[in-house]
């Protein structure tokens, strides 16, 4: 069985890891493209270094990326799950591993393990309206959803894409956003937390876009990704628009050292965020979400 033939079902863990293989051993991948997006964030395309076949992933999953001798970090996949030519990640440089990764060049080799985790319910959501709410770097794990929706547009109702960034200089994927926006069948709104006078777009927190409507709350699936604080307020705003919790999916983040449920760091009550998440249907975690420092 190839390393990652996936069953696209909601939210499932990855399919069986080849038995006997050490799950902590990375596979070398070559950087085929690396591009700075904004000041501290870059996107990297990876292909298997040995030229083998690339496994597939489900939107919402992540890989563990290893920089030789420095360390390993969990990074959500931000590319097109329908494109088998490379696997793409958008990474914010916040620590030693990601800062070194930002300085790597095309042709450099990194280690990869994955894909791990549960995915967004893109198949489950067929026939519904869709609301995507992304905040900051949290927009990156939603980009594979957008690719999927666009590729299967006829299967969905109204699609609203709401993206909040810090300032206009921090907006990711500007060209793609403009392209999606120009499609008449997608409702794309970008807002920033603050701007200078030169910005002619929206200023305000992304949750303020939710009451604008554009979706049928009783037939909508909402997917929210961003800082936990932002997701908390977004869920409230969705609830106020009568979107119930079993229609809302969020992506949780915790310290991950292995990605396979052995190291114990990512535990979130009964769940291992690396295996049972990172995507969770909100009604299933609502009670623990409210408990601080759980």
């Amino acid at each position: 069985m190839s390393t990652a033939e996936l069953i696209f079902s909601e939210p499932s863990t990855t399919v069986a890891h080849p038995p006997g293989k050490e799950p902590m051993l990375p596979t070398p991948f070559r950087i085929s493209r690396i591009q700075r997006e904004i000041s501290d964030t870059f996107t990297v395309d990876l292909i298997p270094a040995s030229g083998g076949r690339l496994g597939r992933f489900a939107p919402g999953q992540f890989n563990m990326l290893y920089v030789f001798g420095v360390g390993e970090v969990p990074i959500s996949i931000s590319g097109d799950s329908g494109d088998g030519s490379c696997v793409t990640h958008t990474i914010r440089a916040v620590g030693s591993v990601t800062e070194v990764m930002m300085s790597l060049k095309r042709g450099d080799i990194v280690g990869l393990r994955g894909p791990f985790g549960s995915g967004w319910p893109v198949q489950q959501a067929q026939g519904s309206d869709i609301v995507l709410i992304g905040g900051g770097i949290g927009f990156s794990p939603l980009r594979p959803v957008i690719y999927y929706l666009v590729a299967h547009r006829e299967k969905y109702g109204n699609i609203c894409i709401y993206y909040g960034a810090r300032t206009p200089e921090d907006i990711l994927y500007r060209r793609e956003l403009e392209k999606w926006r120009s499609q008449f069948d997608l409702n794309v709104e970008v807002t920033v937390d603050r701007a200078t006078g030169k910005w002619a777009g929206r200023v305000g927190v992304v949750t303020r876009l939710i009451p604008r409507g554009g979706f049928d709350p009783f037939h909508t699936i909402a997917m929210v990704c961003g800082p936990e604080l932002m997701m908390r307020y977004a869920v409230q705003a969705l609830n106020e628009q009568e979107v119930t919790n079993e229609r809302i999916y969020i992506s949780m983040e915790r310290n991950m050292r292995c990605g396979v449920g052995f190291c114990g760091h990512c535990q979130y009550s009964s769940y291992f965020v690396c295996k049972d998440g990172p995507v969770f249907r909100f009604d299933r975690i609502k009670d623990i979400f409210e408990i601080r420092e759980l």
Partner: protein
Amino acid sequence: MTIEKPSSQAAMAVLGPATLKDLIATLSGQGYQVIGPQHSDGAIVYEPMEAADELPVGWSDQQDGGTYRLLKSNRDALFDYVVGPHSWKRYLFPPAQRLWRAQRRGRSFTLEEQATDTPRYAFIGVRSCEIHAIQIQDKVFNNGDFADPGYLARRAATFIVAVNCARPSGTCFCTSMGTGPKATQGFDLALTELIDGKRHDFLVEAGSEKGAALLAKLPHRPATTDDVGAAEAILADAAKAMGREMVAGVSPLLKDNLEHRRWDEVAKRCLNCTNCTMVCPTCFCTAVEDVTDLTGQTAERRRKWDSCFSIDFSYIHGGSIRREGRSRYRHWMNHKLSTWYDQFGSSGCVGCGRCITWCPVGIDITEEARAIRDSGGEK
């Protein structure tokens, strides 16, 4: 989780006290590295041994919250003590392991999986609670999605000689956890030490084909009804003498009380020293370290025991989720007694009492659970 297998007298035999020498020698001869209890630094620990005369004779232990004392027993028993600070996880799930090594090759690198010879361990003196703990860790390292090949290999090669406890230590509570005192499964051989003024020998039960094969090589005689009865009486007394118990229904109890004020009270005492997680036979959290040598040409990934009490255990860019000691204690106790059921289908606790004994301030999880229950479960 464990089905009490009715001990068939036919499967039992009696070994003379000197036969332990033969047992250990035979195991060594078969290529096992024998690990057994030894007296070291005022405690009974599990260390490699070569001969039966290394076993501690005539020692008993007195354990309580934050207290461990070894006392000279009034008889020359080999197993009058119970569990000490070590558990068998230090062999099956070593405190530090190298997972793999990588070599830089220009801009790239090659990876070498750690191909070590799997040690073949023979554990002498495994208590029933410890068998349950090993089986609990079996489910952690083979969780249905992923398996740790190193652990599985070590585990498959291990020979277990269990010992039935003649007495609880004081902090034990295996009866209320359903894990003892009698070893009913999961062993190759199980010994019950029969010692009074008139006799000193061992009732032995084979629990597997490997065990039966080894027993066949040792001088023994068939067990009589009296032998079996003597062993059962010892175990019945041990069960009655348990000094502590875990309250029933602790899993839903803790889930319903995540904001109970008791967590604040225990936090005032807990030093976050991580002793409990180190001595607990089921705790499995690890840190992963990626290191290089000074030249930067060779890198390794190492796995080391970690503890959820460490301050950066839950760190994600910028800060730890569990900033307060209260939150970390709550996490540990909830995991051990409650969420472990959701994850692995059983409790994570086997009632061995180590966390109570080795806590420097004597925090007792049975007492904490009881306090929450008795407070009427107010939040």
